[in-house]
């Protein structure tokens, strides 16, 4: 508990004890003014700051707020008590004291709850590095502020420490916990030459890292900035609340005034007893009920918890407004490469070879040994073992066709169909989609290797989950050929696809979809952030995937997925829906209870006790409900 919260707690306890003492004294003391003075002690202990703030508000022409409502209501109740006593009846001051006490208890609870969730959420996003270790001239480790480290410096990260700046590992190997960045719990292995991002925690070995960015530009700072800014973009519900509070409080105050004045006036005109104090009391009850705290606090708290929960699973949402839009998404448009597929080329098959597939890969990998062409790289990757380049001789590259040479003393040629035609070799065509590498050995055909972009394992599941989350239609856009697009679309179960699109055609496709959908339905575009910035920005909500380290994507998108798992899109939508459901529950629940109590209060059915219990009770329930938005593991 913070210092002022402790002070408040002590005040509440002291005032409660004194109030009980007053109740006991009431049995022995009959003079009303003595009782009034006695009751004033706990009243002022509990509520002096409320009265002071109300006074301060009036002086600065900021009249209508909770403090004003509570002050008028409790002072009104005391006034009614005094006038009853003057008429010879029982003066009841307990009510005013109790209302003030309960109100303050509610406020204290609220402040503790908000403080707790604020702490929880910031610990989820605890990626801010406190220091960096550098070596001084005598090879001693020195702790410095990450702000002071220049690009290209060597920093040392011990096991258990946070990596303070982005960089490349120069010495050592280790595994990293990236959970704070990606929500992924499996550690990532790094060794010499690996790129590492700030905010990860070093788990096992000492790493020497050459920094590639300064602190301001590092991943950790960028993410923190994004998360901190998120809370300042307000959703329409939040804007509704602030507008609501602006009109609501004055309306309630004037209705209370009307309730105190008009009915007695009518009764008087009708020639009956105006029972003016009964109506003043009812007006006070009305004011207590009307206190809008439950709504005002629980809505932003729900959004904040939702944003925090999402970022703990590696989903960064740039504002409450996007959380709201996300919950209304009915159409999801995907970019193919890098989103549903890995975007890297892999050997997917070896066909028509008289040799073992392994052997063909071995020979081709050696032949391509010196090449850094993406296709050569993927063949070498598929071979997996170390290359012995001594067995390779006479390498000739034939531009646009392939490569020839001798491996193990046998002449080998590998390349496309054109190369086989030039060499006059009878080759077999392939029905698979992808890039085909034909191989010839000693002048005869030795089969072909199929290289293609592979579909992500979770893509199919992701589409199914989206459908379960209420998505009406999934669309895939790609610049790739019809044949490739169809096979991917069929494999993952996408509803609609458009192939062979140029970047500007993707934009016009999305524009067309935007025109066709209903106004309340939203369209999300998910891409890997490379070359699709225009589409990200025209869609209702742009989702960038695998955005770690890609600044452009983080800039252009509204939702950033820290890893490249397409299932996270469905998860983001589910988190948004849960959060919005909680927001609506709180809005409907607290406003309807308020309205009910207001009506009961106006007719004198609910007294001030019921009023304040309803107010504090609704607030506590709404706050607890709001905190639920933070729990997203099971969503």
């Amino acid at each position, binding site marked *: 508990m913070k210092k002022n919260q402790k002070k408040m707690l002590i005040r509440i306890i002291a005032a409660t004890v004194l109030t009980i003492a007053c109740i006991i004294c009431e049995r022995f003391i009959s003079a009303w003014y003595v009782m009034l003075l006695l009751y004033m002690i706990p009243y002022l202990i509990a509520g002096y700051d409320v009265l002071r703030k109300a006074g301060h508000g009036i002086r600065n022409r900021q009249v209508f707020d909770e403090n004003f409502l509570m002050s008028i209501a409790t002072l009104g109740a005391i006034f009614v008590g005094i006038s009853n006593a003057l008429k010879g009846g029982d003066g009841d001051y307990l009510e005013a004291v109790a209302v003030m006490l309960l109100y303050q208890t509610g406020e204290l609870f609220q402040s503790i709850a908000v403080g707790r969730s604020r702490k929880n959420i910031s610990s989820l996003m605890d990626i801010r590095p406190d220091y960096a270790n550098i070596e001084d001239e005598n090879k001693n480790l020195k702790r410095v502020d990450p702000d002071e480290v220049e690009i290209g410096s060597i920093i040392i990260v011990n096991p258990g420490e946070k990596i303070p700046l982005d960089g490349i590992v120069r010495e050592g190997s280790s595994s990293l916990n990236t959970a704070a960045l990606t929500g992924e719990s499996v550690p990532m292995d790094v060794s010499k030459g690996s790129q590492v991002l700030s905010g990860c925690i070093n788990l096992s070995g000492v790493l020497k890292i050459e920094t590639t960015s300064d602190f301001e530009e590092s991943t950790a700072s960028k993410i923190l900035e994004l998360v901190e800014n998120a809370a*300042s973009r307000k959703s329409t519900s939040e804007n509704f609340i602030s507008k609501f509070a602006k009109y609501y409080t004055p309306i309630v105050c004037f209705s209370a005034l009307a309730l105190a004045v008009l009915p007695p006036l009518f009764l008087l005109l009708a020639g009956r007893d105006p029972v003016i104090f009964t109506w003043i009391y009812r007006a006070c009850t009305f004011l207590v009920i009307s206190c809008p705290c439950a709504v005002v606090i629980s809505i932003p708290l729900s959004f904040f918890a939702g944003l925090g929960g999402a970022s703990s699973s590696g989903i960064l949402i740039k504002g409450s407004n996007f959380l709201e839009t996300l919950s209304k998404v009915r159409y999801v448009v995907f970019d193919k490469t890098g989103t549903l597929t890995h975007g890297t080329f892999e050997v997917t098959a070896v066909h028509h070879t008289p040799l073992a597939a392994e052997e063909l890969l071995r020979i081709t990998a050696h032949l391509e040994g010196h090449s850094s062409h993406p296709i050569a790289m993927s063949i070498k990757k598929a071979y997996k073992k170390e290359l012995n380049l001594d067995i390779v001789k006479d390498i000739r590259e034939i531009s646009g066709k392939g490569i020839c040479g001798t491996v193990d003393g046998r002449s080998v040629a590998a390349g496309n169909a054109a190369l086989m035609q030039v060499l006059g070799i009878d080759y077999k065509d392939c029905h698979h989609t992808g890039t085909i590498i034909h191989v010839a050995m000693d002048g005869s055909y030795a089969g072909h290797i199929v290289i293609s972009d592979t579909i992500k394992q979770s893509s199919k599941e992701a589409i199914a989950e989206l459908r379960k989350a209420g998505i009406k239609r999934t669309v895939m856009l790609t610049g790739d050929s019809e044949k490739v697009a169809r096979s991917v679309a069929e494999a993952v179960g996408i509803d609609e696809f458009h192939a062979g699109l140029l970047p500007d055609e993707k934009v016009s496709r999305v524009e067309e979809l935007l025109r066709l959908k209903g106004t309340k339905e939203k369209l999300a575009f998910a891409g890997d952030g490379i070359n699709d910035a225009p589409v990200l920005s025209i869609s209702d909500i742009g989702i960038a995937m695998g955005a770690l380290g890609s600044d452009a994507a983080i800039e252009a998108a509204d939702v950033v997925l820290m890893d490249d798992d397409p299932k996270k899109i469905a998860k983001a939508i589910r988190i948004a829906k849960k959060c919005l459901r909680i927001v609506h529950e709180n809005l409907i629940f607290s406003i309807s209870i308020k309205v009910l109590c207001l009506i009961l209060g106006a007719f004198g059915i609910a007294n001030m006790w019921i009023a304040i219990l309803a107010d504090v009770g609704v607030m506590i329930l709404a706050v607890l409900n709001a905190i639920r938005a933070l729990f997203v593991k099971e969503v």
Partner: protein
Amino acid sequence: MKKTYPIEVDCANCAEKMENAAKNTDGVKDATVSFMTLKMKVEFEDGADPDSVMKNVLSNCKKVEEDCEIFL
């Protein structure tokens, strides 16, 4: 130019009041207060001196909510 300041305030409604007070201060182009992160983000008008503007922002905020604090 934009700057972010940590703040201290007890209630969401008061944060709203601070935001309006800050927005209406001379030299401030736009301001947002987030009650949840306890941060005030201020966008200054061109040529305004942040330090002196922020002093006015603080005194305006104190007028509407005396318990608030901006850590300059």
